[in-house]
């Protein structure tokens, strides 16, 4: 999957960018007791831009994601917190490629179950208050609009789990 243009917020803060993509997963960490309720709340607040978390703290929590991000970063001679690296990983398909390769736990689960983890590029079809109805590849899903408060029908967004994460520039008309 490739994208010709960057997101609307081209110079997004890398910490905020990472946390928005990974916040929905934090619930799984909570279920596994790898983080406690307080940490979960801190991650949520930081993802909303209402708090600050140290990079080292975040790397410790999302250790598997950072193991992969470091590999991506090394290949590009960059820092794992470089926005280009984060975008390549989350927005432009490397995260999905890891899932498709069936690394670790992914190998055990069915494709349908694994698909729930993928980042999708979707079009907003309708907006109902803070919920967006989006569509990709003929699939419709409802996601939370909290991270893209101005999203409206026709906009292109990425979605991860239950959240719309960022707006994408519209594809040029051909």
């Amino acid at each position: 999957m490739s994208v010709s243009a960057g997101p609307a917020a081209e110079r997004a803060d890398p910490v905020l960018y990472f946390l928005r993509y990974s916040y929905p997963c934090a619930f799984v960490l909570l279920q596994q007791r790898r983080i406690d309720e307080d940490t979960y709340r801190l991650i949520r607040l930081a993802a909303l831009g209402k708090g600050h978390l140290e990079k080292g703290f975040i790397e410790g929590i999302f250790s598997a994601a950072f193991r992969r991000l470091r590999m991506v970063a090394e290949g590009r001679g960059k820092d794992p917190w470089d926005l280009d690296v984060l975008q390549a990983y989350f927005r432009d398909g490397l995260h999905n490629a890891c899932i498709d390769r069936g690394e670790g736990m992914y190998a055990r689960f069915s494709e349908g179950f694994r698909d729930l983890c993928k980042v999708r590029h979707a079009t907003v079809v309708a907006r109902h208050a803070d919920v967006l109805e989006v569509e990709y590849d003929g699939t419709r899903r409802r996601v939370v609009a909290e991270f893209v408060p101005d999203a409206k029908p026709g906009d292109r967004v990425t979605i991860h789990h239950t959240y719309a994460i960022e707006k994408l520039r519209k594809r040029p008309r051909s």
Partner: protein
Amino acid sequence: MCLSIPGRIEKTDGETAVVGYGNERRTVSTKLVPCAPGEWVVVSGGFVMQKLSEEDAKKALALWDEADERERRSCC
């Protein structure tokens, strides 16, 4: 990242539901996916993301049970 652990809806109240995970209970939102008691679901970010058949849910739970610590830490 981010494979989810299935749970079962125990009760609903408007747009919230209590989901049981073994001995644990969590209150979640059903705003994205309306649910009824007894249904199996995966939750992410505090919202029900998808319903699952009982068969698929039990399969997924068994996979989590079988996984060792290293595997459990491999997704996020």
